């Protein structure tokens, strides 16, 4: 009881609001916090598109139709995982004009650019992609990014190419993959679907979900949860006895 109270009272975010994802909202205590840093990792090399797609979906939901989206990519990450394609934002309702692309030679430059962009008015989402594990974004660097996101009231998304196990100051850490099995009635590909695994959550437990994105309504559709274990629930002591 005492532990859950501490989790609920943990100070997070600048009060900027939440992005409602649907099924994971229960674990996230309301949704993905807007003015915070979140980390995304692909489940494998073929899932690079799913990771960026999920990041763009969050960007589309973050502030809707206004504001610039900054995409910062380290040069090596662009070689390994390919650079952003402006016309690919169409399913998420993002015009190519809204993007500001920054190519950084080193991880340090990328982190500096992310911090500067987060503090800027008029920028709502900053997506930064580091090559490999992104070793340069350790606890100190991610803490700085988190503070900058809170101060500038922007959403910060840090994309790494391999999972990073060290502690970091991100509010949540996700592993994203494309979800198989979505088809249309003719046997072709169905709508865009993501398989999300929440591996670190400051506000609650972790879980796995499959979410589908609606291209026309530009939002996530409610989907089934694939949580294996019972979610942690605060149960009073006498209910267990009785």
């Amino acid at each position, binding site marked *: 009881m005492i532990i859950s109270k501490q989790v609920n009272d943990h100070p997070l975010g600048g009060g900027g609001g939440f992005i409602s994802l649907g099924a994971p909202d229960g674990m996230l205590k309301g949704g993905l916090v807007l003015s915070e840093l979140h980390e995304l990792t692909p489940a494998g090399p073929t899932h690079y598109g799913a990771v960026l797609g999920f990041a763009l979906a969050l960007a589309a939901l973050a502030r809707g139709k206004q504001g610039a989206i900054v995409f910062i990519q380290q040069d090596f990450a662009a070689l390994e995982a390919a650079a952003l394609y402006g016309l690919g934002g169409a399913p998420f309702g993002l015009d190519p004009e809204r993007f500001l692309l920054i190519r950084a030679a080193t991880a340090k430059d990328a982190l500096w650019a992310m911090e*500067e962009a987060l503090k800027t008015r008029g920028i709502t989402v900053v997506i930064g992609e580091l090559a490999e594990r992104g070793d340069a974004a350790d606890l100190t660097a991610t803490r700085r990014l988190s503070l900058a996101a809170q101060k500038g009231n922007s959403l910060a998304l840090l994309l790494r190419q391999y999972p990073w196990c060290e502690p970091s100051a991100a509010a949540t850490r996700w592993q994203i993959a494309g979800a198989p099995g979505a088809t249309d009635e003719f046997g*072709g590909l169905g709508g865009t679907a993501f398989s999300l695994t929440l591996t670190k959550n400051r506000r609650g437990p972790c879980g796995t979900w499959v979410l589908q994105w609606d291209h026309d309504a530009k939002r996530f559709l409610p989907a089934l949860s694939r949580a294996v274990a019972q979610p942690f629930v605060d149960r009073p002591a006498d209910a267990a006895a009785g």
Partner: protein
Amino acid sequence: MGAVKNARRLIALNDAAERAGWRVGMSFADACAIVPDLMSADEAPQEDARLLSAVADWCERYTPLVGLDAPDGLLFDITGVAHLFGGEAALAQDLTQRLAGFGFRTRIGIADTVGAAFAMAHHGKERIVPCGKTREVLAPLPLAALRLPLETRQGLSRLGLKTIADLMACPRGPLTARFGAHLMRRLDQALGAEEEPISPRQPAPALSVEQGFAEPIFRDEDVLLIIGRLTERLCESLEKRGEGIRRIRASVFGVDGRLFRLDIGTSGPLRDGVRLHRLFADKFATVSWDCEFGFDCIRVSVLETQSVSPAQKNFAAGEDDGQTVSHLIDRLTARLGETRVLRLVEQDVHVPEHACVAIPAADAEEFSVPITSPLRGGRNAEAASAARHFGWGDGCGEAPPPEIARDARSQFRPPRKGEVMPRTHDTLAAMRPVRLFERAEPIEAIAEVPDGPPVRFKWRRAVHHVARVEGPERIALPWWRDGKNRPLTRDYFRVETDAGARLWLYRDGLFRETLGPRWFLHGFLP
């Protein structure tokens, strides 16, 4: 010493050599015969040119208009500059002294025209030609002072013309007929009858402020502080003219004769001293200057301006303490470089890699892109907009209300006047990838011949099985280019693997175009 017409000849001599009796042009063998122990070095014209450029750079402290007069001279345009140094004589004295400090011996000539100045510097006795007295001063000088080629000079001396006075006395017609037009042109240039401009190495700035120091300064912070102060003064003058800065340069002159330049460009006209100081600080962080002897002069010049309308200060608005997007772009451009801060522009082109190109953000403001691409807006794109201003806040087209999207019959009715039709897809999946490789990665794919979709493919040494596929989308590259190397037609497939990942593959070439078409992975779909 260098090779002239396959014989080794002397090119340049020092004082002791001239006293020993050598002359320029003498062959090396003859010179050795006169004085046996001879110290010589091969000529290095590139090194000499580089040295001359370095000296010209340093001499910019006097005037920004400095031209090279190969191989060993410099041309200065000191119109309106001499009074800053206390007069022409004082300027010449200062220049001679400083260059002597670097180890150069100089001869200076100051006159109304380039030709006369050259003549005084090379052959004249005094330094300065008083205004209007050019003819009298040039008269006794030899003809070599007029920059004439050797054959012309030899021909003129055979005719008995040795000094410029002799030349001026002769009639022009027969001389031009005999020697060509350049003879008279050189004379006219020297006397001022014909214009001869200097071609300066750097463009003349619109405005310039400089500060010199009695004691050299060493610390980086001091340099930045002085640059900030000079920039403030420039901003004040520009405010009176109603202009803003687009390109600005800070030149820092070292005591040992080196010159360092910091160039800043902005995406819009800027007049804010604080912002410019930040841009300079960002740029300064990327350079590493090692000057042990310090800097003794700093000059800030404005290279390009743009008129700006004065902004009314709004008393109702709140404190403007966050930086805006345009300032962020300027700072990132200053620190990372212009090619690394980009914006995306759509083009009405079928080839996917050119359909959306990245251009430097600083130049993007002048772009206005008409939306006619077939992927955007559907059939009535032209009705929706003519030219769009490149802005952040316009947002995308409105999502159609759910009733229209789901009503299958309404998709086929003709559009009403002024209505923008919703985008019509032929697929539920995304049509274009969210990531695109700059160079498509080659893969090994197994597919049914000739037109079948891939069944299995190997990318980066891992085999992936295809669960579902959509396609082909045939994109033919411009056939009108290069008759021999016709680019092949591509068939794009949207592929979903067993694991659920979606990829954008293409087969490069049809079976009727090429014997062995290859497969590539071009991008990742969301």
